[in-house]
Structure formats: structure tokens, C-alpha cells
């Protein structure tokens, strides 16, 4: 069994991204401290800042933290290349450190893919998975006599039908702001059976499928989305949806809790949660995820590992899910009927999660300059909302991005 008290007395610093997930961790931190006797200094900062700071600190070789929370879809390659994360394969196999229930097999496929580096070495523990789903306003759908779309075609139709600027009502909203909007497009692309970077690591964003996906994006965002959407990040989109003026909102599964909070929402109980409709080539739920890693430079790797392990433990994962704050990567938790019973979110949400899990696909390429990728194509997408031709925009963006990619990978 795990010897929790072995590193009692040590102090570790934990650097988290501010989100409902990290808030759950912080909320129950005292449990971990009393369990292990390890003192934890945890701080959660907004995503953008946290990313900047952790990278700067890690690159100096003397980071001020032992555990780092990373977004796989953005930072995986970068962290690998910098050799910033410790190899924890050994810890996972050590029964005095790892609970028997935790095995590689328990993780969803996408999670393992995320957690292991290109050589197959385990560098982090997958913490939470984020599928993109469709939040839909049942009231607005009923009014127009519509039902939840099953294909992209239907999605567009429904969105356009619901849209009525005279009542300030719009059928569809998603991120339009540069950078944040790229995953929307790449998620669509999955439905066309394509990805922006092909298997050889080459950019492939001017394919017919890519252009089709971009056209879909353009159509939805220009015909059915509220004005100013090109400046919307998730926050603006969420605000709009919460006020009941939006038919469908396409974003991560983790944004659900405020929808069911009467202090924040006018759509409590009126919201449907739908799996991403089927595209012409495939049905796929864009998947993102984050994990917890032990910093290579840390001198308290074991204690840090204990923390990571605790964070993704059965109990903590259950709490995460039940609060609607996130979805654990561990199948055993999702499968546990007891856990499912405790979920506070509507059943439809859980169904959407489960349904998405079955068609999960990584939505962003695993490269170092993810931010540049998102920025460059994000600008192209924003331009499309402004009316630019998708094919040309994508071509220009690709021309810009190729050298960046070459520089970083070369």
C-alpha cells in the first residue's frame, strides 16, 4: 500500500491554472495535507498568465514550483522539448508511491497519448479531459419547432432559423476572438475527417476539408451569430448564452455549472447538452486535456508525485465530475455508478460527456508553436467573420505558419 506519510514534513509548491478544476483541488487541499503531512502551497492563476510564468520559470532551470498544471493541447511539445518534466514511469510502478487502482490502462486513450512523450515515457498524469459539446436552448428550439441537430447541415439550418436580430436572438455562438477561435474550426475539421497537421508533421491546412470546415465556421458566425462575435472569447459567449438569447453555444464541457446556477443564469433547466453532430466524413468530439506533472528540477519529486496522484485519485475525480467542473481521464471513475448518481448536473450533460468520450479526437496539433498556430489561423478565421474568402485566408495563414513551425521543430 501507499506509504502516504513517508514525506511528511516536506513542503511543495503547486502551480495551477485557475479553473473550476483547480478550485476543487484547492478546496480539498487540507485533506491531502492531513493525509500525507506534506505542506502544499498551491496557487491558481489565470490561464494566460500561468502559461507565461511557468514557461519563463521553467526555462531558467530554477522554477519556484514542484508540480505544474499544463494544458496538453498547448504545452505538451514545448515541455517535452525543454525536458522540464520528470520521468514518472518509475513512480507509477512503485507500489509504495502508487495506489494499486491506478494503472496506465485506466486512462482514456487520449489521456495516455497526452501524458507520454514521443519516446513513450510517462511525463505527467492526465488530470481532466475536455470535450467540446453543444449547449442548446430548448425553449428557443421549441418556439421554432426544431429538434437538436444530428448533422452539420441541420446544425446550420437550426441556427439560421432561430436567428432574429429584431429580438436580439441568435442561433449560434462560439469563440470568434483570434487564438481562442482556432479550436472551433479544427473541431469542425474533424467532422470532415481532416487535421491541420498531417501525420508527417507537415501543415495541411489548405486541403478541401479544411476549407469546408472554415466555410462552415464562416457561415455560422456571419449568419447566425450575434454582432461583434469576432471579439468574443468564451466569456462573452457564455454571458450571451446565460441570458437566454442564444440557440446554440459550442464550447468545452466544463462551462456547464454556471448554466444551472440561478444566480448567474436565465436558462436554468432549459438547456440541452448535445454531442457534436455528425460531419460529412465523421462524427468526432474535439478533445483537449490537462495534466499534472512533476518538475524535473524539483528536489521533492516523490512528494510532488504524491500530490499528482492524489489529485487524480478516485475520490477527487468523482468530486470533479459531480460538480460538473471537469471530466476525469480515468475510466473507472466514469464507469462507477455511485459516482454518476452524485453528479449534480443534469443527466443530459453526463450523457453528452459519455457520448463524446466515444468519439473523442485530439483537436489541436501536437507541436511546439501551438500559440502561433492558434494566433495565425485565428486571425484568418476572424477575417472570415469579417467576410474574407476562407481559401485565400487559409493559404495566407499557412504561408505564415510554415516557417514558424520549421523554426521551432528544426
Amino acid at each position, binding site marked *: 500500500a501507499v506509504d502516504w506519510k513517508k514525506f511528511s514534513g516536506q513542503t511543495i509548491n503547486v502551480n495551477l491554472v*485557475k479553473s473550476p478544476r483547480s478550485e476543487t483541488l484547492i478546496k480539498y487541499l487540507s485533506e491531502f495535507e492531513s493525509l500525507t503531512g506534506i505542506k502544499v502551497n*498551491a*496557487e491558481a492563476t*489565470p490561464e494566460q498568465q500561468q502559461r507565461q510564468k511557468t514557461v519563463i520559470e521553467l526555462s531558467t532551470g530554477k522554477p*519556484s514550483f514542484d508540480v505544474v498544471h499544463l494544458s496538453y493541447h498547448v504545452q505538451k511539445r514545448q515541455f517535452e522539448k525543454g525536458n522540464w518534466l520528470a520521468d514518472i514511469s518509475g513512480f507509477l510502478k512503485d507500489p509504495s508511491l502508487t495506489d494499486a487502482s491506478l494503472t496506465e490502462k485506466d486512462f482514456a486513450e487520449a489521456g495516455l497519448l497526452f501524458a507520454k512523450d514521443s519516446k513513450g515515457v510517462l511525463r505527467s498524469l492526465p488530470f481532466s479531459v475536455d470535450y467540446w459539446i453543444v449547449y442548446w436552448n430548448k425553449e428557443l428550439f421549441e418556439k421554432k419547432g426544431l429538434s437538436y441537430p444530428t448533422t452539420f447541415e441541420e446544425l446550420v439550418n437550426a441556427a439560421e432559423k432561430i436567428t432574429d436580430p429584431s429580438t436580439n436572438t441568435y442561433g449560434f455562438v462560439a469563440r470568434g476572438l483570434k487564438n481562442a477561435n482556432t479550436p472551433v474550426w479544427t473541431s469542425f475539421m474533424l467532422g470532415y475527417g481532416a487535421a491541420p497537421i498531417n501525420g508527417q508533421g507537415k501543415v495541411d491546412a489548405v486541403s478541401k476539408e479544411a476549407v469546408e470546415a472554415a466555410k462552415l465556421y464562416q457561415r455560422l458566425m456571419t449568419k447566425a451569430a450575434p454582432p461583434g462575435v469576432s471579439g468574443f472569447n468564451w466569456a462573452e459567449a457564455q454571458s*450571451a448564452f446565460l441570458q437566454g438569447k442564444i440557440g446554440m453555444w459550442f464550447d468545452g464541457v466544463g462551462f456547464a455549472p*454556471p448554466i444551472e*446556477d440561478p444566480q*448567474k443564469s436565465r436558462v436554468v433547466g432549459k438547456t440541452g447538452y448535445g454531442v457534436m453532430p455528425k460531419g460529412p466524413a465523421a462524427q468526432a468530439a474535439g478533445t483537449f486535456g490537462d495534466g499534472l506533472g512533476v518538475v524535473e528540477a524539483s528536489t521533492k519529486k516523490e512528494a510532488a508525485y504524491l500530490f499528482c496522484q492524489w489529485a487524480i485519485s478516485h475520490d477527487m475525480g468523482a468530486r470533479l465530475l459531480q460538480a460538473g467542473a471537469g471530466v476525469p481521464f480515468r475510466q473507472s471513475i466514469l464507469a462507477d455508478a455511485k459516482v454518476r448518481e452524485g453528479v449534480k448536473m443534469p443527466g443530459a450533460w453526463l450523457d453528452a460527456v459519455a457520448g463524446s468520450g466515444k468519439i473523442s479526437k485530439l483537436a489541436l496539433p501536437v507541436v511546439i508553436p501551438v500559440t502561433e498556430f492558434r494566433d495565425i489561423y485565428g486571425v484568418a478565421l476572424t477575417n472570415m467573420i469579417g467576410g474574407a474568402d476562407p481559401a485565400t485566408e487559409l493559404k495566407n495563414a499557412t504561408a505564415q505558419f510554415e516557417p514558424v513551425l520549421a523554426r521551432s521543430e528544426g
Partner: protein
Amino acid sequence: MAKRLIRRKTLDSLGLLFVAFIMVSPVILFFLWMISLSLKYEIDNGAYPPILFPENVAWSNYLKVFEENNFLLYFWNSVLVTGTATLLALVIGVPSGYGIARLKAEKSAVVIMIARMTPGLSFLIPLFLLFQWTGLIGTLWPQIIIHLVVTVPIVVWIMIGYFETTPMELEEAASIDGATPWQVFRLVALPIAKPGIVVSFILALIFSWNNFVFGIVLANRETRTLPVAVYNMLSFEQVSWGPLAAAALIVTLPVLLLTMFAQKQIVAGLTAGAVKGG
């Protein structure tokens, strides 16, 4: 006739009052809205048409600010960073303003102005590395030191203006009276420049208090200052305009109070100082 005159004058000044009120209204509107946001639940904050006075007042927004974050610690950090940076700036900036004014050393003033012209961002990485090598990261010192880049130029600039206007003869009189240069400065020049010192103190305080860029990179959980903490209220996956506005209000409140309280001095000092400020 006199009555007619008086009536015309009051009309004039009422007209001016009206125009001034129009000019000020965007300010009033803004702060009113800020207060309103901070007192509403999310559901009212997103409402359209907007609600100015909510039915349910959300005092909890303020509670949340103090509960969820270590706001008191950040407040204290801000006080320490700003206070120390400002006091240090006075300690070195006031004599320097004096020296520059007396030396007519415009060139040294330019060096100090360059600090003002340098984009703040370009300090960040080098200084972060520097502070890490020196092991200061994790303390408040990096922020204090970097805030000096903000405070010292303000103090020096305003003080140059003040010392240039104090008559040289006073100091000559003092030196004839037997004062050493240091005594001349301490016993004569300094007391006379008191209003300038107060103003530069207030302004340095305000601009240091408001500084945001430096804190993003140099501060961590223990050493974060208020503006950064406010920005950190933005959390992923949860809009929370109410607490955000409450936090924003809490940060600006001390400064706004100070402004109201010392507006005469600030106006006087800034007009005098700013005029020199080119």
C-alpha cells in the same frame, strides 16, 4: 442695474456648471456603473436592458473577493511595495531633483527620462533573470526595485520643477550663515519644497499602486499586488463580473479617495510638475 448684473453672473456660472457637469458625466457614469456591477448578481449584470439598481443587492460579491483570494495579503503587499518604492524614491529622488536643478544638469534628467520612455516590457525578462540569480525572487524586493523605475522619475521630475523655482539667494544666505551644503539642503531647500514633496509622494504612490505589468511576471502567490490580483479574478470557465467589479473597486478606492482628498494639491503639483515634464 446691479441686480441685472448679478443675475447675469449667476446665469453664467450656472451655465458653466452645466457644461462642466456634462464633461464630468462620463466619469460619473462609469464609476456609477462600476459600483452597480459590483453590487449585482451575475444574472443582473448580464441583463439586457441593463439594470442599474438591482432588486437583490449582491454584497456577497465583496465577500467573495475577500474569501476566495488572499485579498488582504495582496492589499498588504501592495502597501509594502508601493510604500517602500515611494519612500525610497523620495529618499533618493528628492536630493537628486535638487542636485539636477542646481547643476542645471539636463543630461542627468534625460537619463532618468529614458527610464520613462523605455517600454516596461523590456525590463521584465532580464530583471526576472537577474532577480533569480540573486535569489530575490519570492520576496517583494524585485517588485519594489522595479517600481522605482516608475516612482523615481516622477519624484525627480516634479522636484526639479520645485527646486528650480526656489530662490538661489535663500541658499546663499544660508551658506553665509555658516551652513554646509548638506545643511543648506536639509534646513532650507527641503522645508521650502515641502508642497512639492507631498505632491510627488502622492503621485508616485498612485502610479506605483496602479502598476500592473511588472506584477504579472515578478509576483507569485505570496508577493502578488492588488492590480494583478484583480486581473486574476478572471477565471477560466466562470464569468464573474460582479466580484470582478467589486475587486476593481476595492483596488481603485484608496486611490480615488486620495485623489478626492488631495485634489487641490495634486492639481497644483501636476500642473506645476507636468509643465516641466516635457
